[in-house]
């Protein structure tokens, strides 16, 4: 009977294809929205991803993400280094300040001060430049950090460092050798960094920890994070617990800190609320489309089910047929939708730097939701089959 159900389904031709496309659209919408959210969240913890050598991140106990930070005394670094199981520990300073361009324009940057000795946390520089150029005096490297048009410096020398600002003049992108001012300090751009895009997007200025301490506005403390590497004999989780217990600081493994950061965004970011709304709309539209189309499909086939019922098909048999039809549509439609999502998302990410990351839960949630909705819609439409007067098969009814 399942074979008959399949042939009844496929034989509908254009309606079957329409139903498949409707379900594919639904799964596409859900998976794309979730992948979009995952893409943003991934960009949210880009700072952590850029430091793969760190096993444990240590911070002030009040810090709960890479977005919500405060600094701690520099002595904390020595305390962490003294703990058994710490193979190495380096400082990382993170702060926000305005960078002034030569024509008088300014732009808020996130300044990332990496350990001057190891340059740990500094992504590769464009043009295969040696990262050691960052150790030269006043050096910094910049990245757009997912922004567009924020690294513009005046094109003409005549517009650089004038007495009065030359704001609306032709500009070009910052490049090696350019000079900017940060809090009155001269900073020389030594390269462009191949950094990960950020969420929220923001221009990034990488420099050494010492230089960051020099150019950032004065604060009581400068040390934002300590990045510790665990000795081979100690697991990061054990080391994190040990550091937290011995120092009173917050110590998180990479996975834990990423999770903390995602949770922080989910709880605090208004953009996440907008994205969640988008996902809800996708769910509602998709469910509406899938449910209504499946319901209509079964409604149109009521006569055939009545005949099968007259010929002795039991309600269980008919329900099985309807659910089989819905299940097949759901599985095929979801497959098409997820395939479309992967292709479109990949293109959007590579061509337009779109924040798209199809993680395991996106296809799983999409498939699960679409299949559940399809089966529920089918079960609802099956009620019409069971309510059908069996005698309706006769012409007189």
């Amino acid at each position, binding site marked *: 009977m399942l074979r008959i159900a399949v042939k009844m389904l496929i034989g509908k031709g254009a309606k079957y294809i329409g139903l498949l496309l409707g379900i594919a659209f639904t799964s596409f919408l859900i998976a794309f929205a979730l992948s979009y959210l995952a893409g943003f969240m991934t960009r949210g913890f880009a700072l952590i991803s850029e430091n793969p050598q760190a096993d444990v991140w240590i911070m002030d106990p009040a810090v709960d993400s890479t977005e919500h930070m405060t600094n701690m005394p520099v002595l904390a670094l020595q305390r962490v280094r003294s703990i058994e199981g710490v193979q190495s520990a380096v400082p990382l300073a993170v702060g926000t300040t305005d960078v002034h361009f030569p024509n008088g324009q300014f732009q808020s940057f996130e300044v990332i001060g990496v350990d001057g000795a190891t340059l740990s946390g500094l992504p590769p520089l464009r043009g295969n430049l040696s990262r050691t150029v960052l150790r030269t005096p006043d050096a910094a490297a910049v990245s757009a950090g997912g922004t567009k048009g924020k690294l513009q410096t005046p094109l003409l020398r005549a517009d650089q460092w004038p007495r009065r600002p030359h704001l609306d003049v032709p500009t070009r992108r910052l490049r090696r050798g350019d000079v900017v001012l940060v809090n009155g300090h001269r900073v020389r751009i030594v390269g462009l960094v191949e950094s990960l895009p950020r969420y929220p997007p923001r221009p990034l200025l990488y420099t050494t920890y010492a230089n960051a301490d020099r150019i950032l506005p004065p604060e009581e403390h400068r040390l934002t994070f300590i990045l510790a590497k665990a000795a081979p004999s100690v697991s990061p989780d054990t080391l994190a617990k040990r550091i937290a217990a011995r120092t009173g600081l917050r110590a998180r493994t990479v996975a834990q800190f990423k999770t903390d950061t995602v949770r922080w965004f989910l709880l605090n970011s208004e953009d996440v609320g907008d994205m969640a709304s988008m996902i809800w709309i996708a769910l509602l539209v998709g469910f509406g489309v899938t449910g209504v189309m499946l319901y209509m499909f079964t409604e149109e086939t009521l006569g055939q089910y009545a005949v099968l019922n007259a010929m002795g098909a039991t309600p269980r048999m008919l329900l099985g047929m309807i659910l089989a039809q819905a299940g097949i549509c759901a599985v095929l439609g979801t497959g098409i939708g997820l395939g479309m999502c992967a292709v479109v998302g990949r293109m959007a990410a590579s061509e337009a730097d779109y924040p798209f990351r199809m993680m395991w839960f996106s296809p799983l949630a999409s498939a699960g939701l679409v299949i559940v909705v399809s089966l529920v819609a089918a079960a609802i439409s099956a009620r019409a089959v069971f309510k059908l007067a069996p005698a309706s098969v006769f*012409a007189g009814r």
Partner: protein
Amino acid sequence: MPPLAVHCHSLTKTYGSGEAAVPALRGVNLDVARGELLMLVGPSGCGKTSLISIIATLADPDSGTCEVLGQDVAQLDALGRARFRNQAVGFVFQVFNLLPTLTVVENIAVPMLIAGRSRKYAELRAADLAERVGLSERRDAPSRELSGGQQQRVAIARALACEPRLLICDEPTSSLDHETGQSMMELLQREAKVPDRAVIVVTHDPRIFGFADRIARMDDGRIVSAEEMSVNA
């Protein structure tokens, strides 16, 4: 008197209630013998469809009893009725009611698949039945591509698939032209009319009355006359 296939006694059936109540059957008594081809005739709304719906276990009477092939159908639950219809009753409908996306053989095989027969058995027997109704050449054609006459042949073959002992035909010739209708009745008489099987044909078409063993006339929810036909066509 051969054993009865159908024995209905004092059947009543009313649709709606209160002032909107429409009585469809007002105490119908009807016996149909095994091996008999009974035609049920009468004007529209006289209760023919209600009567065959009750006989076919597709509807319940308000009162009265109906025994079909020795089984009091009121005693059967929904599952029992479904099994009873599948194994004991065959249907031929006015508008054929084939599954349009299935082939001739697949359509004929449906009742056997419902009965739990293997697909191989069902399709072999369906192919044999398709040949018996003259459709062996078109056995793999989708039923929607068949003419009206061919579709009704498929419907007859499908109705006979489980070798039912009661065949109920609802206006089997009304969607067909006269010539095709006649050949359909010949086919029905040749293939369906066997000593152990009763055939009930609901019809408006006087041109096929000659195929009947007996004609029961209905009017206003009652059987008003039942006449034996002396010579079959």
